[in-house]
């Protein structure tokens, strides 16, 4: 019985086990009725015959996608022209490229009519066009046309509304259906619908408009611009407000809004809901009902209390002290607060569905703003709380970069934004990648005519990765150098040689002793690739036999005598680094070697020897500079300096012609302009490197002024940011010989600050010396012992 019992029990158990194995799957699904959690995810089935399925298209069909019955490509293109007009405009159907091919990218503005008043903003736009390097007064040479009729405000209730635009433009012989025209608009439509109708037919003209709605936007053709106020500065412009990178963001508020609440009409959907997210602590969303004449008619129960709360906070104070700012739509999609938030480094949280963001063709707004959804307003607080602090920091910095690069002044909004975007469309193969637009220093300062390769610019060595060397390769490389390899492990690096570029202006026409010594010293540098001499004398250069024999090629370039010649982008300059020299500069090979090694660490800056320092003279109300031995520096003279050859291109092609003419007319201003340009691009000071103490011949201004009367700024005023007070007695010590040159330089600084709209120069308090410079250690251990010899 026992065995039988056991046997029975075993059988029983076995059957349950079997049951469990075969039916287990079903049993587990049985749990479906009790709750979903236990359920297995029902995936897309793995069909038994999936490998037998047919392909979606025959290989033949995919590879020969032609149809002989189709019209020829030329016919198709011709047909396209007639189909896609006006609202279907694209560059290839509505723009005459041939106009731009003949004369290059030139912009013509219609002559202003006397009886036609222009708004302040439109005058600024026209002025900025006329000041730019693309302006042409000749309509025949123009590629783009800009009307002199003010079309910024097309709200017909507005005082600035210009009537009968249609008739006027049809009268223009150049109008040509709007082809190659660019029309600016900030406000369109009016109460109550605010449609985007301009009140006239723009035809085939490109529309540059604020508050663009995506559905009306002709992609790749129209351009969305930001709404800016009439007080927006013409040039220069205010700086961004971020002066501190703190993590976590130490602002008082997380998210703020202060503005009108529309009780009715378009846009009220969003504005009416904003008060819901107000928590009175870190989220402050204040609305007022007071706007328009008859707001009390629509007044609701909230209004009175809201209006009181509204007055308790200051808009500017909120803007300064918040990490995020809500930028909701107004009646129109765009609003002033967008640029205001951008400048304040208050990350815009956009609640404006369907807004084609400004310059979205170029700017990656996802890096600087949170594009919210009007319908999901209530999710915004939790969404932004989830954003990591590093990301917030990156957002903040990006707002400042974008503000400074593209929006801080009218010149910036219109010149770069528009021209460069349109220009890029004309030559798609010579256009900037999105990377260039969204990385410092910005698309405007990366000229595609110079190169389309990132490694050719001084700015992107670190971001622009390269294939890493294999360890074997690596050790080989370090074998060549005696110490550890100078090989960068991330990013690419500038070329390992430089071009010495010597300007000769001595009227003698023969080779002076200093220039011979200089050529010898420079050519002895292991990093020197070639020497170029810019011969700017009236007499022809000496025959090649008279030049010293050098191990590197020496080339003479005949200059035209202009001062700005020395920064012309000569094709002969083949290396990334340029060592700019004057003929009577005196440098030793060690100095050159060390400076070049330093420059390779700072390829975007000017690295050199003699320096100047600028200051603001509050008495005379102008900019001054001193060549005296001061504790700081902001200008490195190009009589002896390394910089990237790209700055030659920027100097010649980016700066307006007027500025170059200005420096051609002033003595010794061109090197200051170069410094100002580089500082404006990099926002960084130049770098001074060790120089042996025997400068008597090289920089005459410094002679005899080291007599101890140069003032040191008081301890509290070491801040390099201008305006600062001048070192004492600077004016008085300007000697007679250097005096004229000196005062012209003062002029020069003032004029440059005026052109740029601000003073871009930045001061530095340091000098870079070799690691063991003047250290108490054997000279034999030092790599640059010669730098220490008196």
């Amino acid at each position, binding site marked *: 019985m026992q065995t039988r019992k056991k046997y029975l029990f075993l059988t029983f158990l076995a*059957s*349950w086990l*079997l*049951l469990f194995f075969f*039916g287990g799957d079903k049993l587990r*699904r049985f749990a479906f009725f009790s709750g979903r959690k236990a359920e297995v995810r029902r*995936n*897309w*089935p793995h069909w*038994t*015959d999936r490998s037998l*399925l*047919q392909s*979606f298209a025959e290989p033949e069909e995919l*590879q*020969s*996608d*032609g*149809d*002989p019955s*189709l019209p020829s490509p030329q016919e198709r*293109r011709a047909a396209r022209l007639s189909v896609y007009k006006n609202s279907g405009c694209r560059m*290839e159907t509505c723009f005459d490229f041939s106009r731009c091919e003949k004369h290059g990218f030139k912009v013509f503005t219609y002559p202003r009519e006397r009886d036609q008043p222009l708004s302040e903003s439109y005058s600024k736009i026209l002025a900025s066009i006329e000041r730019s390097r693309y302006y042409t007064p000749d309509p025949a040479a123009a590629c783009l046309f800009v009307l002199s009729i003010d079309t910024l405000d097309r709200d017909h209730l507005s005082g600035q509304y210009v009537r009968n635009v249609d008739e006027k433009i049809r009268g223009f012989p150049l109008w040509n259906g709007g082809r190659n025209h660019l029309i600016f608009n900030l406000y369109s439509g009016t109460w109550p619908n605010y449609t985007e109708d301009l009140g006239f037919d723009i035809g085939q003209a490109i529309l540059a408009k604020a508050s663009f709605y*995506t559905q009306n936007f002709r992609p*790749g053709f129209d351009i969305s611009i930001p709404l800016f106020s009439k007080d927006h500065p013409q040039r220069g412009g205010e700086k961004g407000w971020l*002066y*501190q*990178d703190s993590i976590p963001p*130490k602002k008082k508020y997380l998210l703020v809004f202060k503005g009108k609440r529309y009780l009715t009409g378009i846009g009220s959907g969003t504005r009416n809901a904003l008060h819901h997210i107000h928590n009175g602590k870190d989220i402050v969303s204040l609305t007022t009902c007071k706007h328009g004449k008859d707001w009390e008619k629509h007044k609701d129960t909230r209004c009175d209390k809201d209006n009181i709360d509204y007055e308790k906070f200051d808009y500017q104070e909120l803007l300064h002290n918040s990490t995020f700012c809500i930028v909701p739509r107004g009646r129109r999609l765009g609003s002033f607060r967008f640029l205001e938030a951008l400048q304040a480094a208050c990350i815009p949280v956009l609640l404006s569905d369907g807004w084609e963001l400004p310059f979205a063709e170029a700017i990656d707004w996802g*890096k600087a703003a949170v594009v919210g959804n009007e319908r*999901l307003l209530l999710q915004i607080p939790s969404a*932004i709380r989830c954003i990591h602090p*590093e990301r917030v920091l*990156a957002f903040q910095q990006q707002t400042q970069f974008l503000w400074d690069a593209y929006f801080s002044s009218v010149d910036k909004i219109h010149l770069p934004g528009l021209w460069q975007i349109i220009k890029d469309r004309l030559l*798609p*193969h010579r256009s900037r990648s*999105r990377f260039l637009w969204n990385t410092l220093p910005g698309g405007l300062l990366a000229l595609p005519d110079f190169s389309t*390769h990132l490694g050719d610019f001084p700015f992107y060595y670190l*971001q622009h990765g390269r294939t890493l060397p294999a360890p074997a390769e690596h*050790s080989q490389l*370090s074998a060549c150098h005696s*110490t*550890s*390899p*100078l090989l960068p492990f991330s*990013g690419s690096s500038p070329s390992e040689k430089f071009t010495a570029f010597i300007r000769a202006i001595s009227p003698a026409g023969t080779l002076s002793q200093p220039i011979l010594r200089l050529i010898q010293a420079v050519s002895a540098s292991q990093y020197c690739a070639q020497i170029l001499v810019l011969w700017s004398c009236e007499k022809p250069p000496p025959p090649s036999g008279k030049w010293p024999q050098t191990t590197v090629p020496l080339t003479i370039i005949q200059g035209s005598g202009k001062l700005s010649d020395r920064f012309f982008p000569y094709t002969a300059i083949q290396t990334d680094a340029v060592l700019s020299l004057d003929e009577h500069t005196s440098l030793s090979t060690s100095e050159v070697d060390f400076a070049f*090694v*330093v420059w390779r*660490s700072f390829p975007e800056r000017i690295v050199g020897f003699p320096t100047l320092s600028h200051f603001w003279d509050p008495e005379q109300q102008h900019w001054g500079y001193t060549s005296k031995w001061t*504790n700081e520096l902001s200008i490195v003279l190009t009589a002896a300096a390394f910089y990237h050859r790209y700055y030659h291109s920027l100097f010649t092609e980016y700066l307006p012609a007027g500025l170059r003419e200005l420096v051609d007319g002033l003595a010794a201003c061109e090197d200051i302009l170069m410094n100002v340009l580089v500082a404006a691009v990099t*926002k960084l000071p130049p770098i001074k490197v060790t120089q042996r*103490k025997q400068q008597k011949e090289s920089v005459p201004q410094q002679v005899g002024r080291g007599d101890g009367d140069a003032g040191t700024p008081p301890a509290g005023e070491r*801040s390099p940011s201008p305006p600062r007070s001048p070192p004492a007695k600077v004016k008085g010590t300007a000697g007679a010989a250097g005096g004229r040159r000196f005062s012209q330089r003062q002029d020069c600084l003032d004029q440059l600050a005026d052109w740029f709209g601000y003073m871009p120069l930045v001061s530095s*308090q*340091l*000098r*870079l010396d070799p*690691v*063991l*410079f003047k250290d108490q250690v054997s000279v034999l251990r030092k790599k640059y012992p010669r730098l220490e010899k008196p």
Partner: protein
Amino acid sequence: IMCASAKYNTRGPALIPRMKTKHRIYYITLFSVLLLGLIATGMLQFWPHSIESSSDWTVEKRSVHDVPVVKLPADSPIPERGDLSCRMHTCFDVYRCGFNPKNKIKVYIYSLKKYVDEYGMSVSNTISREYNELLTAISDSEFYTDDVNRACLFVPSIDVLNQNALRIKETAQALAQLSRWDRGTNHLLFNMLPGGPPDYNTALDVPRDRALLAGGGFSTWTYRQGYDVSIPVYSPLSGEVDLPERGPGPRRYFILSSQMSLHPEYRSELEALQAENGESVLILDKCTNLSDGIPAVRKRCHKNQVFDYPQVLQESTFCVVLRGARLGQAVLSDVLQAGCVPVIIADSYILPFSEVLDWKRASVVIPEEKMPEMYSILQSVPQRQIEEMQRQARWFWEAYFRSMKAIALATLQIINDRIYPYAAISYEEWNDPPAVKWSSVSNPLFLPLIPPQSQGFTAIVLTYDRVESLFRVITEVSKVPSLSKLLVVWNNQNKNPPEDSLWPKIRVPLKVVRTAENKLSNRFFPYDEIETEAVLAIDDDIIMLTSDELQFGYEVWREFPDRLVGYPGRLHLWDHEMNKWKYESEWTNEVSMVLTGAAFYHKYFNYLYTYKMPGDIKNWVDAHMNCEDIAMNFLVANVTGKSVIKVTPRKKFKCPECTAIDGLSLDQTHMVERSECINKFASVFGTMPLKVVEHRADPVLYKDDFPEKLKSFPNIGSL
């Protein structure tokens, strides 16, 4: 089960009669329990639709031919034509997606059905291999949900990849009867070959109302920017042919055209180019006299020469991708796979994934009318850029063209990024090939800001029990004008810090932070008490730095706020004999590290050190009680790609690394340990991020022949 129960049944009845009654009840109970179990199992087994459509989803093997058939009445509704004005905010229902912490949309796939018309004629092929792969990929991805009620996006299983393989009206009817169709809201259709003769529309002709379209071959007029997704035309050759990536370097041809049945007008233009530029241009066409058995799609011919396709694409620098009847061409995928730079000649074509991919980095787009200038345009591209474009092209293929899975996931990610823009994938993540991502840096402090001097710095002194020395350091540091706060990190849990009254009286706030554990990483914690950007880390025995030196260090840091600015410098070297890295503290002409026994740096790096240190470095350092400074040097150099700045001349520091005893043997062990750290960190970082430089920073007038009293920082380098 059948087997087991049969066995039981034969034995059971035979046993029962012979049993005693007291056992009988027991056995009957057992038997009935078993029987009930069996019945329940059997019911589940053979109960086909007990759970909603569960049988459709079992993992068990089934054929596509077994799927249910749905008959479409002739008068069943047809959706409206696609609405060209649709945008995410007008036609998409975001409420379905909702807020979720993962920021992922949920995608539902309708189960497969076979659709037939009234006469039983099928509407289309049930499903193509590619569409099945695509749906499988979605189903396996983290976007997938099987719960139709929680879904944000719906993907019909109706295959519309190729418009020519389906009946337009009936397909539309099939779409309209989907259970959640609702005018196509939040439905996503995938189509690669749109249009058909004679006009070849550039978007799918099937009426689809508000549905989103992931289409291959959109033109700028049919593409709804920010709503549709432009996808590639998949090339099945991708899966069949393995083309290994080809390194940079010259290729045999400069321009290659491999497409068959080009329009004669294009062909004559290409031939004109060839006539002008000779051998470097190769124009291929279909082979006319191939022997049987060789697939024509895998061969191309030029005159009598036969080339293997797609292998021949690797022989050329640039490969022409001309439009055919449609704008999107499968050859683009082959060209990218070959690492050949595509020259795209298809006016108004919206390139695949153009919403996120920067095609300027991987291709050259030339307007059709400029075809005659193609050669000179391409010649103007710098050689170095060509190499990058080749690498980029290959990367685009690998990441986004290679398989239907890649295409499906990229499409869903793009839609996901629109719905959760604040969690969107960045430009760099989309566009940078892994090698670039790995070797380039994105500096977290990229904006060139010179922090205001008025902010000052916070000094952090890590201490254990050397109170006397600590007090001297505090007194010295408090003399520095820009010091704004002093933080003492008390790392000794066994002993209380001295009483308040015993601390030196200084002009700035002094705070003592007590730590829970004696860990070196405590020195790099981003304490809330640090209110300045600049942090001065200083050891409790560094008393030899003058106030001028510290103040100058702060000024230098302000000019280089994203770097470590420190006093004692160190170097790493490659040891050829041992084939590994070596630590060097001798008087060298170069530096690559500064010791954090006295160094300024941005508070951000404290945050990075504490929360973002790669690998196990942080714990390793805490466990070994060493090398926290080397780790910090690695971290900063790795994230910024920049070198350290050593300030002021070398001083005889009281060997800040060696603690108690000064002895040769101890010193050597110390050096070995430090070298080990470098090797360990280099392997964790996967690279050697440290940068070697030959310079240090001194005040402008350092050692110049100039009255000391007029120098800002006269007291530099004194001992």
